[in-house]
């Protein structure tokens, strides 16, 4: 019974092409270890260096975004050992063999319009405009970790092939489940 449950869970991930997944509370301490395992596995699979680096880069930006912005977080964690935020991060390959990094987390419903606007804007830009926008944000964002600075999302768009895919599902009056997927 127990094996059935976990086997079904595993199969569901397989069907999506997911080769790596983490669901639950994430901390900055976790980022290094997970990132290392992903790089190691991709190197063993003889993935091209640039592909590995792009996947790694998108992974880092997504996980750090979840840690910083997930609306589902352990309270009281920040004072002692850093932020602890709930989310999902996955890496997979589609049937054409393209790698993708997909993540999800809860957001405040009030944040959704801003997020959509930001992502739609990023997706509307071509290669050169995206580069110009990135530079403008680097020059003008108030500080390295400013909330609302969309540098992390622009970084993801620049490492991705094609637009960033996203989807939002309202789960209550004030919360929504936000998903983001980028192909490399």
């Amino acid at each position, binding site marked *: 019974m127990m094996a059935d449950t976990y086997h079904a869970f595993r199969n569901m991930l397989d069907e999506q092409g997911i080769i790596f997944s983490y669901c639950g509370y994430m901390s*900055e301490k976790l*980022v*290094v270890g997970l*990132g*290392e395992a992903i790089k190691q596995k991709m*190197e063993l699979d003889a993935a091209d*260096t*640039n592909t590995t*680096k*792009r996947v*790694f*880069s998108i992974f*880092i*930006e997504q996980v*750090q975004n979840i840690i910083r912005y997930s609306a589902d977080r352990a309270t009281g964690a920040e004072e002692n050992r*850093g932020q602890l935020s709930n989310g999902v991060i996955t890496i997979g390959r589609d049937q054409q063999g393209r790698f993708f990094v997909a993540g999800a987390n809860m957001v405040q419903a009030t944040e959704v319009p801003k997020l959509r606007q930001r992502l739609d804007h990023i997706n509307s830009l071509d290669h050169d405009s995206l*580069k110009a926008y990135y*530079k403008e944000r*680097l*020059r003008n*964002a108030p*500080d*390295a*970790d400013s909330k609302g*600075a969309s*540098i*992390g999302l*622009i*970084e993801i768009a620049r*490492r991705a092939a094609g637009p960033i895919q996203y989807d939002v599902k309202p789960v209550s009056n004030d919360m929504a489940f936000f998903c983001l997927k980028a192909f490399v």
Partner: protein
Amino acid sequence: MNIHDISRAPTDRSPEIQFDPDACSLSISGASFPEDGAAFYGPVLSTLDEILKALDQRCVTVRIALNYFNSSSAKALMNLFLMLDDAAQAGNQVIVNWFHAADDDTMKEFGEEFAEDVRFVRFNVIPTAVTS
């Protein structure tokens, strides 16, 4: 303030920073995705800014040899280069040597882009032998 405070030992996720005040040389190497980009780079950059502002007709050499950095580190690097550009405009000779693995397109592109952002710094983008 002790100027040696700028140097940092490398970690899994933060670069080694070496600063030699006599030679006016700075080196940043390794990987950079610190837990808190502002907390890591903030003190380094503000100290460096004071040092640069006190220089007069000096030669400053900066070596950047990063294999990966995240977006908050990119923000810090941009601030560093703008600061160096001010020092160069003020009459110092500033050279940045940006090293990247020959097969690393992203790090090469970053170097070329930062080179476009400075007007007075001599910014060299230099491929190195592939190590990994």
